[in-house]
């Protein structure tokens, strides 16, 4: 995709989010207003998006695909349990680092708009599978059932973490990330689970 196209798409997302922040109403987001603000034609915008829901869905996909690419690179080069543990931790760090200013609104849309909810659920499964792989290699010796239970639990907590972290100021996010990772590590070392 051309750089100018990527830029335009990013700008459209930003304007849509700004509009949502001001009006609090999805139906107030207007393609015409966005086109006017960006000095482009409505056709240029509707080339990529047909509805407001599409704008948020594409933004959600873009964020997650980028995060998965980064995560996969770390998983791919992992060889030892220590590397896999590190890949597990790196994911949370990267997630927090790359959260946008408007992460709260993006989360709200991903939990509310039907297409975004579907993508969120699909992605949740993908995240869970990766957690399972990393727990298996990073904390070896667990049987399949334990692995399944622990990856489910880690996923449950991670989704609670997302909801929490997008609603707090950036400066506080790193602090809670450390505690959150400690909590997960403690849980993954729990002897009851072996």
């Amino acid at each position, binding site marked *: 995709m051309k750089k100018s196209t990527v830029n335009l798409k990013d700008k459209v997302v930003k304007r849509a989010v700004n509009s949502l922040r001001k009006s*609090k*109403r*999805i*139906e107030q987001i207007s393609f015409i207003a966005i086109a006017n603000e960006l000095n482009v034609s409505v056709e240029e915008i509707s080339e990529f998006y047909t509805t407001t*829901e599409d704008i948020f869905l594409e933004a959600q996909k873009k964020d997650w695909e980028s995060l998965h690419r980064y995560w996969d690179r770390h998983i791919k080069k992992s060889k030892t349990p220590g590397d896999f543990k590190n890949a597990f931790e790196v994911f949370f760090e990267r997630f927090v680092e790359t959260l946008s200013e408007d992460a709260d609104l993006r*989360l*709200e*849309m991903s*939990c*509310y*708009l*039907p297409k975004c*909810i579907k993508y969120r*659920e699909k992605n949740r499964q993908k995240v869970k599978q990766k957690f399972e792989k990393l727990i298996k290699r990073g904390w070896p010796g667990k049987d399949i059932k334990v692995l399944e*239970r*622990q990856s*489910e*639990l880690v996923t*449950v*907590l*991670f*989704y*609670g*973490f997302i*909801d*929490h*972290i997008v609603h707090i100021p950036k400066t506080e996010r790193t*602090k*809670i990330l450390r*505690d*959150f990772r*400690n*909590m997960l590590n*403690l*849980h993954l070392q*729990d002897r*009851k689970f072996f």
Partner: protein
Amino acid sequence: MKAHIQRKVKIIQRAMDSIRISDKTLHTISFPRLAQELEIPLSELTEFFLSVEDIFVNEQKRVNRKIENFLDNGLKNAKTANEAKDLLETATLKLIELLPDYSDLVFSASFYLPKCIEERNRAKKYYKQTFRKIIKKGWPGKIDTVLDRQTDLILLSMYGFYEYCAKVGKRERKAIHKDFTNMINLHLQDRLFF
């Protein structure tokens, strides 16, 4: 159950079924249309609710009210640390029992519909204060900063747990419950936090 309440419960259940089938964004569902789909006069619907948003906020408040009463009474009656510890476990069990099948829809609504967002924010503040009191009583000896940090972690874990339970059946909710409470207990005993 009184006939009036029975009718209200029936209307909520049917409304939720209809909303699920329509697969529409919640704020686009008109009340007259909903009455039409339910094949009841609009007046019967407006006897209980004034809008779709009202149906959702009513459901959200109903569950919150019950859990809040349970926690308030539990906290008042807890004489020992063990009783306070048990409260977190029994409250999550209560949540599992209370959440109806359509909780996923209520969960979604709480991220966008204004009254639902307001209720969500109010409840979050309440849970934060109450969990802090429970942790203080159940795991005595923690200093204030530790209490605050652990309260945040328990709060985010609980919201992750709530999201999961809202989207799965009772059997799956119960399956994860034990692991979840074990993990919470393990975390609250963590020596790193003392």
